[in-house]
């Protein structure tokens, strides 16, 4: 058969690698800053755009979308043409993809610190940037699918299956979760409210982990491990079974982020069982990766690339066993809202994602620059430092999470909470935060060695931009192929099957939440927010308060004792977006405004506390927000906010927007008067008053009705 000649262009692989390296360091440094801010709360020096709650999304987004994202794009742009024996379809689309993606990351870093956020975790980008993400994702998809169509290899390899699943699922998740009604260029409200919004968000959030941090990395694993070890894949059958099981089951597991919340029992149960069923499909990937190294273990001992891969895949196995365990309600009752979750996700990111990126880059850069790795010794040092860093990061946080959960739950013999002051449970675990920061520092040191090493490697070689290859034209399918083999020869059909597989779980969970009324029993006493409270809510979102304070009281004796009546679904129906939070670094605020509850604090306390938390609680680790007393709310947008909420179904009376500002000013004057009587002078339209109004409203509707 005649061989056709063609050429691969390594330019974009190279670009994506350096983007991975650079953003990786940025993401880790921001993470380390956050770890230090939790120990020294006013490290940010009262600079608003450096405060913990504003830069936490910079860290998560940089780690996920910049570091891991660019990493697997590098993997795709390198492996896909070689697996399909055809160059990537379009250099122009590739360039748009690369530069567009970097632009999105820069825009994220320029918006979050200044309070422009949608507040949904890992989907914080404001709506115009969301549109850009969709455009760039489509550009990437076009380039990928046309390349697949142009292939010379009849059957697509398992790595490509995972790339396809990644692309279709992220497209579906991202669009559905970000559906929102724009109010201004930088502000929008999601079309979903309260518990429905929470369900959609965690369907997205959980599957961002599945389809952005897992499936593309499995694709990466399936190419780079056999390549680096020069060994065949352990089992083709296992590839098939674990691929389809993984993508079908994963999508259902989102509700495990909402266990013991106001989500109906049936939806929580689905989240539990589908998480448990994920153990085997996840481990299928781990087994296929590790057993591919059979016969090459002697190489693993010496080769830093393979070492990185082995720890990466092992961390994947650990995290995917722990995940289902955390999805059991009894375990989740302890782990949720604590640092346990933070430890868990960092096994995934520092272990699985980062090690896979490191391994790939240590293997790829010498290839691209036609040279040897500058220093295998340095890479080995990096390997050990990173592994230790991961352990020093996670083990203290497991201990911290467990300790704090037990303290929250402890009662005295007389029936009182043993630790009624939330802060006591924080100061108890503070030493663990020091250890975590130490682990993080180690990890960053390792990353610096890594960058130095790959930089020197590139410098000592010369970049091979074009590589020639040859292959026969695509052969027709053979007769008597098995069903799956035939499907591998029909990538578009394959894509449709994958789409169907990932749609089922989401549809079964989300649609009944809208159509079946009994899922969200109406509570007549629950009324929309006043205009001032609504403005305060937007301040709460912009400052990122939800990142440390939950608004979801779970049906546990200790929580109802500490925070009041547990949260009901019907109380959240006007919350666009929901603000349940996922971590309690500070106490829950769901009923912060209910005067008869232990949590209640008067307006003047909130004022003093926001300006200088340590003045009222010397050991508090909350940072100061003094700018809230200077910044003003923009009253010109208030009527539009009311109108937008009404469009979304919040029952503001027709024409209320015209008197909204008057209403706001009247409520404002009342609060300002109260503050004045406590000796606090506050000017007009300050954000802090709106925020206090919002906090004092929280959870009160059902109590006032009693």
């Amino acid at each position, binding site marked *: 058969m005649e061989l056709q000649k063609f050429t691969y262009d390594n330019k974009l692989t190279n670009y994506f690698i350096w983007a991975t390296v650079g953003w990786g360091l940025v993401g880790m440094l921001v993470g380390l800053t956050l770890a230090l801010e939790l120990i020294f709360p006013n490290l940010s020096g009262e600079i608003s755009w450096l405060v913990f709650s504003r830069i936490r999304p910079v860290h998560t987004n940089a780690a996920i979308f910049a570091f891991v994202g660019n990493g697997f794009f590098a993997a795709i742009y390198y*492996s896909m043409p070689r*697996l399909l024996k055809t160059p990537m379809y379009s250099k122009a689309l590739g360039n748009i993809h690369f530069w567009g993606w970097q632009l999105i990351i820069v825009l994220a870093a320029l918006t979050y610190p200044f309070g422009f956020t949608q507040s949904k975790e890992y989907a914080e980008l404001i709506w115009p940037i969301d549109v850009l993400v969709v455009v760039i994702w489509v550009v990437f998809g076009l380039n990928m699918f046309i390349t697949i169509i142009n292939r010379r*290899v009849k*059957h697509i*390899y398992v*790595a490509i299956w995972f790339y396809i699943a990644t692309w279709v699922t992220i497209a579906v998740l991202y669009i559905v979760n970000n559906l929102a009604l724009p109010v201004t260029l930088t502000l929008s409200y999601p079309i979903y409210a309260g518990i429905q919004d929470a369900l959609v968000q965690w369907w997205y959030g959980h599957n961002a982990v599945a389809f952005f941090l897992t499936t593309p990395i499995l694709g990466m694993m399936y*190419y780079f491990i056999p*390549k680096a070890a020069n060994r*065949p*894949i*352990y*089992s*083709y*059958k*296992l590839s*098939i*079974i674990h691929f389809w*099981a993984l993508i079908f089951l994963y999508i259902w597991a989102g509700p495990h982020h909402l266990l013991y919340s106001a989500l109906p*029992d*049936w939806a929580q149960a689905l989240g*539990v*069982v589908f998480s*448990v*069923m994920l*153990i*085997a499909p996840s*481990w299928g990937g781990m*087994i296929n990766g590790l057993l591919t190294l*059979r*016969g*090459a273990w002697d190489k693993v001992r010496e080769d830093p690339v393979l070492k990185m891969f082995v720890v990466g895949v092992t961390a994947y196995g650990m995290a995917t066993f722990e995940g*289902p365990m955390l999805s059991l*309600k009894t375990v989740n009752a302890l782990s949720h809202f604590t640092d346990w979750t933070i430890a868990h996700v960092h096994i995934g990111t520092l272990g699985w994602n980062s090690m896979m990126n490191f391994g790939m880059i240590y293997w790829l850069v010498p290839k691209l620059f036609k040279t040897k790795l500058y220093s295998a010794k340095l890479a080995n040092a990096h390997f050990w430092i990173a592994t230790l860093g991961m352990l020093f990061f996670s083990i203290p946080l497991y201990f911290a999470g467990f300790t704090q959960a037990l303290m929250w739950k402890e009662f005295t*013999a*007389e*029936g*009182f*909470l043993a630790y*009624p*002051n939330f802060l*006591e449970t924080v100061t108890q675990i503070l030493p663990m935060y020091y250890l975590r920061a130490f682990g993080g520092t180690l990890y960053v040191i390792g990353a610096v060695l890594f960058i130095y090493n790959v930089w020197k490697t590139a410098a000592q070689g010369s970049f091979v931009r074009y590589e020639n290859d040859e292959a026969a034209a695509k052969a027709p399918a053979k007769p008597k*192929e*098995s069903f*799956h083999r035939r499907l591998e020869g029909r990538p578009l059909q394959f894509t449709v099957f994958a789409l169907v597989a990932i749609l089922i779980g989401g549809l079964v969970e989300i649609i009944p939440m809208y159509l079946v009324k009994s899922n969200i029993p109406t509570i007549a006493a629950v009324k929309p927010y006043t205009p001032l409270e609504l403005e305060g809510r937007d301040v709460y979102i912009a400052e990122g308060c939800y990142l440390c304070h939950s608004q979801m009281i779970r*049906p546990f*004796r200790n929580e*109802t004792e500490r925070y009041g009546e547990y949260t009901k679904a019907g109380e959240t129906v006007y919350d666009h977006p929901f603000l349940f939070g996922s971590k309690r670094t500070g106490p829950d605020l769901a009923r912060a405004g209910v*005067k*008869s*509850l*232990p949590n*209640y*604090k*008067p307006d*003047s*306390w909130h004022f003093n506390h926001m300006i200088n938390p340590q*003045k*009222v*609680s*010397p050991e508090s680790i909350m940072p100061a927000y003094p700018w809230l007393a200077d910044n003003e709310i923009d009253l010109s947008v208030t009527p539009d906010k009311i109108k937008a909420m009404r469009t979304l179904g919040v029952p503001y009376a027709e024409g209320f927007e015209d008197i909204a500002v008057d209403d706001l000013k009247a409520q404002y004057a009342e609060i300002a008067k109260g503050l004045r009587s406590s000796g606090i002078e506050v000017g007009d339209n300050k954000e802090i008053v709106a925020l206090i109004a919002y906090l004092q409203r929280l959870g009160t509707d059902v109590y006032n009705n009693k």
Partner: protein
Amino acid sequence: MATDNINKSHDNEEYEIDTLTNDRLIKDHNYDGIKELDNDLPPWWKWLFYLTIVFSIVYMIRLFVFQADDLIQEREYQLVIDKSAKENPNTKSTGTFEIVLLTDKSDIEAGKETWIKICAACHLVDGGGIVGPNMTDNYWIHGNSVEDLYKIVTNGVIEKGMIPYNTQLSEEARLQVVSYILTELVGSTPATPKAPEGNEY
């Protein structure tokens, strides 16, 4: 499992053998030099998968058919509350409790601890007051007897932002903190005293 037959078409073809493991390679599976072995699913893995599926079916039956208490949130919560109420029906009141100033060093120390943990958030650690009134001077809004202070701590003055502490602190702890205020704080010199409020006693 149906997938066990996936490679049936290969059965009558010649196999290449991987020399390091003696496993069979699948013919024609070569992707940029990557080959694939024809190994079966590891049995323990298959059983693990079946086990989780069985677990899930049982779980769903327990929820939908038997409506198990531990899977229905409201009921699970109510059972815990009922149980704790039954085990200790008078958890928060000992019935007969004498309200007199405590003078034992250990009581004053315990009172100080409660003061720092709870009260200081509004009255500051040194009692100088910020959101709540100054507790070191001789001015009192609601009286200065042990009974007066005990009543305030127990029932609160909600319109002024002082919440009732009868749900958070035992009777003993409340009396200890009141005793601490009256014996240690009153008459001391705080760093930034709040202006006097109420009447001089």
